[in-house]
């Protein structure tokens, strides 16, 4: 089977990845801001007798001046790598802007197809597009598409095959620019683009005020813009907790109180050895089950984060925040990677590739690990729900402390190692685009899948290692004498001054370096191994209990959604419950130690994936230096918190 390599090229945020998702059935992340794609990604499909491989390249405005890392990837690819066809994706409402790049691509002398994307938006804005005229002028295939819905996208496949077979290289005689001076060349190109655009695009009517103009008058207002920002963040956090926390409690109870004992009894009835039964019950359900119970929290968090990302609100936040960030030597665009850091620090670090200045990049990379990612949210959520009456306020406070420490680090670096004058700021604001529920759910499921895969692989292995280290050497009677106990005890003196001297806590912290959620898994495994089940297990009665719990969780969600204030938990009722893991953890840690523990988890960069990303995108010194700095800062802040609340 013959293979066609197609390079997807275009300006940033024109819908290249959306088109690829429709063409190749890939599930790549999309967003509504310039710079979502910062690395080369591929997808393949079969059409007629061809295998067509698509290479999605980061967006680029011009091939003349390549300033940022993501643009370098595209320029390098176009100059030095082999491909058969160029698929130039053009945002139809901004045709004149995009044709500037098209005229540069023409000079590569490669077969080319143009996708006139977002044709629906152009029509709403009153444009009439003559695709046949553009096709005649350039002598190549031009296809109208809507990347959001997939309309017209499949027509690209026969166009690509035909272009490849006939080797349709764009012909434009007026583009013989070799003899001109570079300055004249640019001028001529601009005139040519203007002429082309005027030939193809005509405004039939002028629309009334667009929704983008209306919303921007509210969201970009110098004062009310911040009020709306605060309201949006508050509502987002409130909905995240109101919807997810009752479900998290329900799933935790379902796994620990129903599934885990049921599996244990079933295995014993089947004649499995005590060792195997305990391993499955304690390592799999005691630890891993605890992480899986946070699936609703991850789902709801990413749902709202993805909505903000795909609606086009994030660049507006960049504009608003530039008033403050420029005072510490950063422009507002740096806010976007920082906000992405609330989802996961690793893609946030990759998103800094859109920045032009290396010093700015290193500074923002050093700020990102202080942004509480979803893995830390899982840990915060568990401890906040277990120990505090008002979990939402505790978590908000932790987030704010993280933001404050990232700013503190930025000021520190700007005044010392990364001293530099403030760079200029230019950014295009995309129109607001409200994603369909289907697209939102698809992206959220991608995030959820990566969380479950992580839990099913790394965290599963960690919980097995922890369980074995708790049961070795063979025949060990007291857990303190096991390998895990000895390691924990060795490290205890280091954590004793911050109230975390208990070996069970220190043992949980060590493997958390591989994945932060592993802290909960480890605590779950250790406490489950210590716990002795005394209650008789009646499956029918327990199942009925779970049904009642589910109904009460649903009614709790409805009641908290109706209340404008954050939900308060009644800890008195829960304190009576001492059999569950939450009860065990409550007995293990006093309140000052819990606070010190939360601050330590917030500040210490305990995630190997983040360290690797910092190393790759920044430098070895940055990654290792930051690891040391974050440990010192975490220890120092936790010490102050512990002493203050003791």
């Amino acid at each position: 089977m013959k293979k066609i390599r197609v390079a997807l090229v275009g300006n940033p945020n024109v819908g290249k990845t959306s088109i690829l998702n429709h063409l190749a059935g890939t599930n790549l992340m999309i967003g509504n801001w310039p710079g979502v794609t910062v690395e080369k990604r591929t997808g393949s499909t079969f059409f007629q007798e061809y295998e067509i491989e698509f290479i999605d390249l980061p967006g680029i405005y011009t091939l003349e001046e390549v300033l940022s890392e993501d643009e370098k990837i595209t320029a390098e690819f176009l100059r030095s790598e082999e491909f058969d066809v160029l698929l130039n994706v053009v945002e139809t409402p901004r045709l004149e802007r995009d044709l500037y790049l098209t005229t540069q691509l023409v000079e590569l002398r490669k077969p080319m197809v143009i996708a006139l994307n977002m044709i629906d938006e152009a029509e709403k804005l009153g444009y009439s597009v003559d695709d046949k005229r553009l096709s005649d002028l350039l002598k190549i295939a031009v296809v109208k598409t809507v990347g959001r819905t997939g309309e017209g996208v499949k027509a690209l496949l026969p166009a690509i095959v035909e272009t490849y077979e006939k080797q349709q290289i764009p012909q434009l005689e007026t583009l013989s620019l070799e003899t001109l001076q570079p300055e004249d060349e640019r001028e001529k190109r601009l005139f040519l683009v203007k002429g082309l655009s005027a030939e193809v695009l005509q405004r039939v009517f002028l629309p009334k005020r667009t929704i983008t103009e209306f919303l921007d008058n509210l969201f970009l207002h110098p004062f009310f813009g911040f009020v709306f920002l605060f309201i949006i963040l508050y509502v987002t956090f409130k909905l995240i907790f109101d919807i997810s926390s009752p479900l998290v409690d329900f799933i935790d109870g379902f796994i620990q109180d129903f599934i885990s004992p049921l599996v244990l009894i079933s295995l014993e009835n089947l004649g499995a050895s005590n060792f195997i039964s305990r391993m499955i019950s304690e390592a799999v359900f005691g630890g891993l089950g605890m992480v899986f119970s946070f699936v609703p929290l991850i789902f709801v968090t990413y749902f709202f984060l993805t909505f903000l990302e795909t609606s086009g609100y994030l660049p507006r936040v960049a504009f608003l925040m530039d008033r403050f960030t420029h005072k510490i030597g950063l422009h507002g665009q740096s806010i976007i990677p920082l906000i992405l850091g609330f989802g996961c620090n690793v893609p946030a670090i990759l998103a800094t590739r859109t920045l032009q200045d290396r010093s700015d990049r290193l500074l923002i990379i050093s700020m990102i690990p202080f942004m509480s990612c979803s893995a830390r949210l899982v840990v915060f959520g568990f401890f906040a729900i277990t120990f505090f009456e008002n979990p939402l306020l505790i978590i908000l406070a932790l987030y704010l402390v993280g933001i404050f420490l990232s700013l503190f680090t930025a000021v520190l670096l700007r005044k010392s190692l990364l001293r530099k004058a403030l760079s200029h700021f230019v950014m295009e604001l995309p129109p607001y685009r409200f994603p369909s529920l289907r697209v939102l759910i698809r992206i959220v499921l991608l995030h959820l899948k990566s969380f479950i895969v992580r839990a099913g692989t790394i965290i599963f292995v960690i919980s097995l290692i922890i369980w074995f280290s708790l049961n070795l050497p063979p025949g060990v009677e007291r857990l303190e004498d096991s390998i895990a106990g000895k390691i924990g005890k060795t490290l205890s003196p280091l954590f004793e001054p911050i109230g975390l001297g208990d070996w069970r806590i220190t043992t949980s912290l060590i493997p958390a370096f591989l994945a932060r959620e592993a802290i909960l898994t480890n605590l779950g495994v250790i406490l489950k191994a210590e716990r002795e089940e005394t209650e008789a297990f009646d499956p029918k009665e327990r199942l009925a209990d779970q049904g009642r719990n589910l109904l009460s969780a649903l009614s709790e969600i409805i009641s908290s959604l109706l209340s404008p204030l954050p939900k308060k938990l009644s800890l008195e009722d829960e304190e009576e419950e001492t059999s569950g893991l939450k009860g065990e953890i409550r007995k293990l840690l006093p309140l000052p130690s819990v606070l010190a523990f939360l601050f330590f988890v917030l500040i210490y960069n305990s995630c190997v994936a983040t360290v690797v990303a910092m190393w790759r995108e920044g430098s070895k010194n940055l990654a290792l230096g930051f690891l040391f700095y974050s440990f010192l800062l975490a220890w120092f802040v936790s010490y102050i918190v512990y002493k203050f609340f003791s």
Partner: protein
Amino acid sequence: MKLSEACCGDRVIIRDFEGDEEILKKISAMGLRKGSQFEVCLRCGRNLLLRNHNSQFILSRDLADKIKVEVLNIEGKPCEAPCLHGDEQSNCEDYLKNELTNEHSRLRARKKRGLGIFKKVCPFLSKK
């Protein structure tokens, strides 16, 4: 005039770029080109928000200093942070600060006036 001197609500046409820096070429490729018309929608902090019929740009003032424009019409419509041509008062922070200072002086004047009337009505209560 420079783009940085344009006021909120002004419709301008880009005439030229000063200098030959790489970033100016990129700005041009982004759509801010000679002959393009834009409305200055907002000036806030160090940034300007420019809009034409279907694009919006944020541009910092140091870059706006390098873009020569011609004002097509001075809209004079109310916006969040109006400014005056050729005046130092060129962004919303300065504007708000200035407005607050004016408000303070108005209040002080009112207080003084109030005290003046008070003195006239009750001269025996005023300190000598």
